[in-house]
């Protein structure tokens, strides 16, 4: 194929570098610098897709982010991407793309049959039907609706590309690299402020890329190059191209999507970061986001070949493409005339300019006349024809304020309709930053009002529509921004001489009637091209009582497409204003929400995937566990060994082996993950006395005590042992998951409530690796490792600790027990953990020392009836519920949580209380989480008595055991209780929660 619609010269494309690409299976050639849209237009391809509801043929409307129609499926396989606008795809060698949501193809799309039912498929259609018979909704109606859903397809495999994030702080961030933005960046940059300039295009210049201008004696290309060169030479100025500022959040926090490789051929992308999200905190923000041209709403304004006048100008001037050879321009303003003039200059033919204003005059009008272009003032397009491309327009003389135009129709043949309904400043980011908008009658657009954040606006966004005003406004905004952040701008340079035509006047014209009232006949006046919302839909919505603009949007889906209504929102608003006969400012504006344009999930996730999705914490003995076949359990962010299966062992076999080793010989556990907090100061004991439910003042130095912590509501939230290292010094341990929360909570009380207490808390969790050896042979192992330590029961009793040397390492050894067996917990510096572990394994070898994991630990402690916070408790459990009254001081006047114990519900006698359960059949292991009832025959909803919190097969006892919370359980010992499971009901007896060694005789080995 050849590029029949490529102008013979001009454009910012590289004609020496041809690029091959494929669209809908057909091969084409474009040039470097093209977008997919410009290259397709150069090849005469206008039909890119179908609309959502009626599947009408659709083509390219715009040349940038505001494009409502031309979404394609880009690429294939693992890197395919749905719904990318052809206008935003830089052409690269080997690009493949296809139309979305068409079947079998875009030329012949079966679903176009929907068009026949257009009269029925009005706004609100779904709400009013598909209700009978009820059973068919899920079986028939919804599946059919769902099949029609969506545009493109997600890939079916994971994404091979890399994404990441950057964080940047600058004094001045400039959004938009058009003339105003460039000037703003220059002014701020020259002041030496740190500046970030961001633009979504592949090159800076904004509107200057689409127009021909002389600035200070240079053409626009030279002027842009000079500006960029000066900015690039500044060390603290960052320039981001192909980068869209998509979100403007609180406190001048903005997010930018930089597309780093999407314009490269596949082979050059490998190993590179594909997209990067920049998180920017800016002292001042200069918004210079420009303006979008508005379409005109007229009968059948959706045919391929009908596009925005500014887009025509862009295709002609930037890409050297003639989007058509016979163009009709339809406008309500002078500025759009430039598109006609430029097309004609590039070799196209402008057959007529239809201007809906009755009086037209001015520099641009004169220039068009000078080119012998016919100007029909006071006319409008009232219809179009053509199948997959516009072929002619129907033109009528218009009467001001008329609901229909009855004048004679004239048909004009054409292959391109350029339209311009005026300009809407791109207020999206300004709105996102909570700034209020105001409507400017003269300019017929919404402009930024008072900002809520520290920012400036400049250029077309600020209503500065001439280049001269843009340059001046941009410079001022940049200088003001720099000054506000403490920098001194250089003296303002003299304004350059600029050659530009006078933009002239605009006369708003929101909807163009045809020969029949809107909504009658077959003609459709599209407002939102992507969602097929028509002016008639808006009228219907109002008729049905929807008057708020938000209701209208939601009822008709205006602005809910992937373009988020960039070209349709203001037209919809104005049409609504006309119907309600209320001025536009009284209608309100719609809300602009992030993102400005869609952002891939991959970019938003950045590198926070897989192993990076959440920090992984490991102990210093982790490698040993891995090398010895441990399976791991996630506990908070920690990886803890779950159990250590040997070859061929089932999980239960491994657990049995591990548990029996502890009961009969010796086992070893990595307990390094417990939180450890050094608590020091003259008031440390008093502090613990207030924090824990039990008494701490009299604990002797060298002794250890177990404690429970409650929140003020009386509910248990953490537990652990605390050792008194010195009169004024304690070492507290917390649960693995609770460490950070407990430390914050301790600091909260010290810093905000009890500021008179002299206590310091220091986290030492990772200062100490902890190896726990448990079992009747634990003493023998320790003796070998610490021959000099007196570990006799008299001199090293339960709940005490000793400092000394273990395996040649300086260590602290605690005699505490979570298994009920003789246990030594040995603390050595974190970095010596593995050395200690290996020494323990070597010393224990003769006793067949067995490493065990969290699961065996849970079984062993359950045999002893010890709780695990978070398993036996769920935020609704008091110490008394757990049968742990013994640890709640009756003497202390106050401690955290005490007052709550006497509330009427908390003091109830029939609260759920911790008990043991023995199933009638010893082999039945109740599922953890089984619900318990007293009457298994009660009808549903069945009154429930509690639930199983822990349940295991105990190899020690040769049967199952369970812990449960049961209503009034403490007084129900020996009663039967039932667990109605799916398919069977298990009967159990309520027993004491201590199943093994009730007298605690095994503690001493």
């Amino acid at each position: 194929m050849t590029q029949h619609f490529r102008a013979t010269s001009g454009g910012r494309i590289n004609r020496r570098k041809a690029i091959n690409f494929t669209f809908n299976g057909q091969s084409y050639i474009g040039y470097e610098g093209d977008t997919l849209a410009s290259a397709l237009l150069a090849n005469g391809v206008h039909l890119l897709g179908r609309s959502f509801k009626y599947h009408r043929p659709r083509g390219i409307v715009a040349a940038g982010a505001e494009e409502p129609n031309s979404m394609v499926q880009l690429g294939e396989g693992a890197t395919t991407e749905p719904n990318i606008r052809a206008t935003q795809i830089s052409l690269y060698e080997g690009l493949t793309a296809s139309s979305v949501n068409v079947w079998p193809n875009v030329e012949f799309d079966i679903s176009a049959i929907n068009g026949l039912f257009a009269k029925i498929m009005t706004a609100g259609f779904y709400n009013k039907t598909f209700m009978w018979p009820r059973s068919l909704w899920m079986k028939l109606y919804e599946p059919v609706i769902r099949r029609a859903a969506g545009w493109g397809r997600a890939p079916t495999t994971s994404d091979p590309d890399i994404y990441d994030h950057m964080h940047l702080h600058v004094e001045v961030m400039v959004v938009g690299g058009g003339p105003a933005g460039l000037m703003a960046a220059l002014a701020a940059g020259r002041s030496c402020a740190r500046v970030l300039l961001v633009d979504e295009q592949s090159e800076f210049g904004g509107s200057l890329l689409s127009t021909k201008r002389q600035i200070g004696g240079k053409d626009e290309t030279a002027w842009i190059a000079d500006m960029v060169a000066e900015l690039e030479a500044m060390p603290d100025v960052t320039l981001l191209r192909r980068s869209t500022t998509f979100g403007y959040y609180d406190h001048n926090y903005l997010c930018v999507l930089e597309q780093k490789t999407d314009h490269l051929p596949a082979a050059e992308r490998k190993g590179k970061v594909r997209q990067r999200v920049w998180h920017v905190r800016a002292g001042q923000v200069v918004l210079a986001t420009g303006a979008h041209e508005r379409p005109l709403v007229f009968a059948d304004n959706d045919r391929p070949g009908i596009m925005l006048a500014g887009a025509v100008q862009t295709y002609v001037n930037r890409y050297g493409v003639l989007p058509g050879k016979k163009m009709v321009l339809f406008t309500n303003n002078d500025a759009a005339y430039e598109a006609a003039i430029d097309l004609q200059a590039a070799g196209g033919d402008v057959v007529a300019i239809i201007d809906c204003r009755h009086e037209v005059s001015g520099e641009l009008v004169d220039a068009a006349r000078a080119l012998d272009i016919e100007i029909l003032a006071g006319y409008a397009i009232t219809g179009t024809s053509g199948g997959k491309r516009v072929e002619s327009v129907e033109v009528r003389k218009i009467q001001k304020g008329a609901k229909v135009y009855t004048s004679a129709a004239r048909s004009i043949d054409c292959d391109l309709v350029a339209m311009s309904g005026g300009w809407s400043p791109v207020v999206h980011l300004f709105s996102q930053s909570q700034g209020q908008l105001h409507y400017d009658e003269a300019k017929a657009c919404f402009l930024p009002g008072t900002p809520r954040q520290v920012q400036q606006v400049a250029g077309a966004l600020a209503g500065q529509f001439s280049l001269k005003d843009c340059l001046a406004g941009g410079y001022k905004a940049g200088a003001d921004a720099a000054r506000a952040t403490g920098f001194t701008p250089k003296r303002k340079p003299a304004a350059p001489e600029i050659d530009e035509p006078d933009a002239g006047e605009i006369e708003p014209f929101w909807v163009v009637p045809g020969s029949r009232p809107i909504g009658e006949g077959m003609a459709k006046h599209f407002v939102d091209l992507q969602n097929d919302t028509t002016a008639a839909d808006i009228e219907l919505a109002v008729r049905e009582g929807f008057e708020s603009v938000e209701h209208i949007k939601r009822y008709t889906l205006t602005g809910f497409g992937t373009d988020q209504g960039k070209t349709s929102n203001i037209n919809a608003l104005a049409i609504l204003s006309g119907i309600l006969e209320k001025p536009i400012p009284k209608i309100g504006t719609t809300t602009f929400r992030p993102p400005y344009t869609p952002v891939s999930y991959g970019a938003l996730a950045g590198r926070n995937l897989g192993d990076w999705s959440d920090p992984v914490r490991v102990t210093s003995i982790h490698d040993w566990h891995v090398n010895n076949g441990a399976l791991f359990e996630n506990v908070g962010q920690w990886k803890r060994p779950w159990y250590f299966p040997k070859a061929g062992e089932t999980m239960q076999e491994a657990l049995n082996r591990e548990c029996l080793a502890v009961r009969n010989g010796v086992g070893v556990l990595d307990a390094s993950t417990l939180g450890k907090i050094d608590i020091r100061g003259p008031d440390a004991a008093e502090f613990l006395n207030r924090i824990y439910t039990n008494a701490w003042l009299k604990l002797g130095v060298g002794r250890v005590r177990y404690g429970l912590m409650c929140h003020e509501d009386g509910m248990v939230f953490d537990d652990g042992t605390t050792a008194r290292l010195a009169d004024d010094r304690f070492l507290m341990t917390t649960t693995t998951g609770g460490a950070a929360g407990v430390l914050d909570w301790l600091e909260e009380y010290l810093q905000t409530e009890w500021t008179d207490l002299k206590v310091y808390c220091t986290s030492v969790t990772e200062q100490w690796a902890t190896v726990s050896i448990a079992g009747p042979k634990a003493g023998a192992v320790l003796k070998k490792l610490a021959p000099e330590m007196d570990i006799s029961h008299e001199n090293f009793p339960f709940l005490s600790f000793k400092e000394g040397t273990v395996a040649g390492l300086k260590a602290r050894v605690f005699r505490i027990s979570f298994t009920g067996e003789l246990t030594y917990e040995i603390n050595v510096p974190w970095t010596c953990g593995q050395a200690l572990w290996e020494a323990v394994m070597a010393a224990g070898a003769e006793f067949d020392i067995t490493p065990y994991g969290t699961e065996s630990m849970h079984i062993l402690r359950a045999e002893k009836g010890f709780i695990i916070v978070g398993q036996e408790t769920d935020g609704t459990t008091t110490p008394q519920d757990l049968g742990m009254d013994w640890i709640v001081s009756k003497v202390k006047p106050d401690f955290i949580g005490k007052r709550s114990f006497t509330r009427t519900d908390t003091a109830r006698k029939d609260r759920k209380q911790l008990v043991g359960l023995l199933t009638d059949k010893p082999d039945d292991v109740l599922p953890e989480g089984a619900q318990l009832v007293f009457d298994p025959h009660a009808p549903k909803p069945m009154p429930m008595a509690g639930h199983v919190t822990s349940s295991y097969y105990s190899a020690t006892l040769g049967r199952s055991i369970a812990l449960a919370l049961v209503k009034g359980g403490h007084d129900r010992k020996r009663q039967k209780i039932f667990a109605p499971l799916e398919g069977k009901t298990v009967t159990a007896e309520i027993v004491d929660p201590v199943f093994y060694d009730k007298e605690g005789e095994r503690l001493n080995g």
Partner: protein
Amino acid sequence: MVKYSIFTIARNALTGHKNWPKQWRSPEPKATYDVIIIGGGGHGLATAYYLAKEHGVRNIAVLEKGWLGGGNTARNTTIVRSNYLWDESAAIYEKSLQLWEGLSQDINYNVMLSQRGVLNLAHSLGDVREGVRRVNANRLNGVDAEWLDAEGVKDFCPIINISKSARHPVLGATLQRRGGVARHDSVAWGYARAADALGVDIIQNCEVTGIKREGGKVTGVETTRGDIAAKKIGVVAAGHSSVIAEMAGIRLPVTSHPLQALVSEPIKPVIDCVVMSGAVHVYVSQSDKGELVMGAGIDSFNSYAQRGSFHVIEHQLGACLELFPIFSRVRMMRTWGGIVDTCPDASPILSGTSVEGLYFNCGWGTGGFKATPGSGWCFAHTLANDAPHPLNTPFSLARFESGALIDEHGAAGVAH
């Protein structure tokens, strides 16, 4: 009320759709009503509807400061389910789900309830324990619930990643097949239309600025459209409950937070159920338009702004891609925020107050949308009888004094 059906649509098509009546009137406020509902969202409109329909109260005004359905009704992720842990929660949400199941027919407005199943994923042994506990509790409470292991999850939702080497692997899930999604706007509009047909005055753009009281009883409200008298006032103002409470001189145990959500661009259907993961904060379903609808966790700080911090969303998408690697090249199209008022126990308040005639329905936190019909039904009962229905008796303000909280925090039941 004109009955909606395909036949009515066809008939109207013949006349160019020029004869559709308004779905609800826009009446001027009267001087006096029997009951005033403050808040024209789903819950408020449902309350008015059931008051009129079930209790015969006809002289009702719903006062809405903006546009009806414009609060959290318009801003949620549309998930409907009833698989809550505690008996009290399960009962009220199950009542709600039962009302959902006949709602389109009841109010003659298709709310597009799509019961395609809700998975709540478990990622740790603790999650599994909680999930199994909830399934068992649900079953005994008459709420449909199943436990699926990881393979079962994959069968039910094939695109989910159940790799054991994932940072937070999927170990299983609870499944409620009757759970699903509904069309959020339609719920407000449908209730509004049905309530209006029963004579309820829905008054939009009418902001309440004061609660009038005499001798410890309410006598009416001051509004931006004048004073309106009523002996009973039901406040259903979601995020703004505290603001109204302050007008009446009472305090509530609620705080308001932003809750963010997002949708992707519409893509061809890839996921045919609702997947929720409380542990990694992912809530996904796909709308009938093809958008992936996703909710995030609440922002930690108090706020009345309908926006939150972006890192909450970025964090959520990282977790999302762990579960659904094929979403990486799908693009986020729109984000938004609502204001939820949350109670210390993550359960709602439907209760009278120390001011006679003043009732509050609030504190639904992130779980409000699914409760809409049940909440309205119970609150209507409470307003009509000046006494709570057994279903909402546990959700009184008194529980904060007695300590009888209904703590859904631990049970992953808090999320959406």
